[in-house]
């Protein structure tokens, strides 16, 4: 059992954070060299030296591996943070970034764009599918916000019911669109729904970074208020927390974060559920530490899962969303059984 002998001081916080950053950078660096084309650290040196024969290696590293690893780190980290936030906000340990239907709505947007062959916005970093996925996710956030809004408090129960219902409606609409659409397009739809990080170049990162970073910043500054909320809304209010404002901001920032990630990576599951639980059992429930650790831990988990996904069935590759659930599921069950025993 975890025993807490010390308070979370700024010094200890900085220490754990530094360790997290170090692990994050190391894992990212290792993932760069995993994949079908064998590219090693020696190639990096050759590229930096301007060796002309290394241009293929440079292309693989810079245009394929680097954006993919960075997207994995960002998407995994963002999903884990969103999961931890929703678990605190809804006071439900089973909550995930996808619980409130944001991902289903984003998927609906993507499926509609794929099946109707909709054109995206001209210019800008978004593809049509990404644009409509993001729009779907944000629309869902707006609808749930209007449904759950109340004068005094922002009811977690209403939020949960409205969100789950919206998710079910979107899933049904996805089925409806699939039923009507050209079977040839269903292959593309299915592939999108599995989730993946197979990007080329930095366009997707450029599209979501301006959304993901501010949302993360909002959530991280509210970590201490989330600690208070885990003792209940009235207790938090008595301690000086503006409960309604914190709940509103956490819901909106967490949902927008999820919508942005899902719009480029698809509905990748399990990262947002198991990473917060694992880190909470290792480092305790203090959200000030937990949210930062989720960002680094979730990123490392997804980048590593993607590295495995692109090597195990070479020369083909697995969709990473399939792999996270296949690896994460049994792992989570073992954790659960050990806890219950």
């Amino acid at each position, binding site marked *: 059992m975890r025993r807490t002998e010390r308070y979370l001081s700024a010094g200890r916080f900085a220490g754990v954070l530094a360790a997290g950053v170090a692990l994050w950078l190391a894992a990212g660096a290792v993932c760069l060299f995993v994949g079908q084309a064998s590219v090693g650290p020696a190639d990096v040196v050759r590229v930096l030296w301007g060796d002309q024969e290394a241009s293929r290696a440079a292309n693989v590293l810079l245009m394929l591996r680097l954006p993919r690893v960075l997207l994995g780190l960002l998407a995994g980290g963002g999903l884990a943070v969103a999961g931890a936030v929703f678990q605190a906000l809804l006071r439900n340990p089973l909550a995930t970034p996808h619980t409130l239907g944001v991902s289903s709505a984003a998927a609906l947007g993507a499926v509609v764009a794929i099946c109707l062959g909709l054109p995206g916005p001209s210019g800008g970093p978004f593809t049509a599918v990404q644009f409509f996925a993001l729009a779907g996710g944000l629309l869902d956030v707006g609808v749930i916000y209007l449904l759950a809004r109340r004068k005094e408090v922002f009811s977690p129960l209403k939020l949960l019911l409205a969100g789950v219902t919206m998710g079910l409606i979107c899933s049904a609409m996805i089925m409806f669109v699939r039923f009507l659409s050209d079977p040839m397009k269903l292959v593309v739809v299915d592939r999108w729904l599995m989730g993946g990080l197979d990007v080329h170049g930095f366009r997707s990162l450029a599209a979501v970074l301006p959304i993901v970073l501010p949302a993360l910043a909002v959530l991280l500054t509210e970590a201490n208020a989330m600690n208070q909320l*885990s003792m209940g809304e009235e207790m938090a209010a008595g301690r*000086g927390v503006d409960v309604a404002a914190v709940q509103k901001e956490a819901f909106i920032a967490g949902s927008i974060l999820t919508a942005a990630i899902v719009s480029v990576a698809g509905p990748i599951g399990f990262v947002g559920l198991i990473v917060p639980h694992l880190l909470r059992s290792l480092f305790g429930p203090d959200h000030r530490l937990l949210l930062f650790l989720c960002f680094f831990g979730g990123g490392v988990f997804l980048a590593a899962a993607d590295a495995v996904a692109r090597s195990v069935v070479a020369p083909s590759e697995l969709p990473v969303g399939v792999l996270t659930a296949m690896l994460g599921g049994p792992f989570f069950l073992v954790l659960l059984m050990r806890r219950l025993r």
Partner: protein
Amino acid sequence: MEAPLLSVEGCSFAYRGGDFRLQGVSLDVPSGRVVAIVGPNGSGKSTLLRLMAGLLRPDPGRVLLEGRAVHSMSRKRLARALAFLPQEPETSFGFAVREVVAMGRYPHLGTFGFLAARDIEVVERALHETAAAALASRPFSTLSGGEKQRVLIAGILAQEPSLMLLDEPTAALDIHHCYEVLDLLRRLSRRGIGIVLVTHDLNAAAQFSDRLILLAAGRVARAGTPAQVMDQGLLSAVYQADVRVIENPVTLTPMVILTGKASDEAN
């Protein structure tokens, strides 16, 4: 008489779409005293406590803390002077006792809430004063009811408030732990902290508090010393039960006993 710590002035309150829960309630809370709010179920005790804590807004009426309207203050500023302990707070995620008590420093700290040396001193002192120091490293959720209540009181003590409002702090406790908590609150009041608690235990209230406020159907039926409020006729009428008030042979405080079945007028 010096200015009251908290004054409730002509406060009424109705939940949205509901009947009035409180009507025209006025009362003063002095510092350094224990005030117990008593009354039958549904008489408005918890509503009154939440009005005092600034969690509910009276309409009409106002609540003044040291002369300032509680609703005009920011929540953090209010929490530095006034602490509120709800009945059976939730305890998700397995925080340790030390962390739970340290959370009381929230209104005094910045965004990330890291404790400075003085904050740690305040938290450790609160743990000692509530005899909870030995529990400090244990997960809060594994404590017994009495231990939990002591730790929660340590948490609001770490807030360094001038007024503590507690909603049924003894509701889930056996007689020993009930008296232990009330004795602790009484000792804290003697250091100058104002204490207001809601309770159903009239005898414990009469024994441990300096003033009683008896609510009936959203109004103050009587406020005063335990001897003034523990009136046989008044209690019989308010609780609609045959009661007798006698003197506690040990503490010499008034004591109420139920003599028969609930009176027929109740039906």
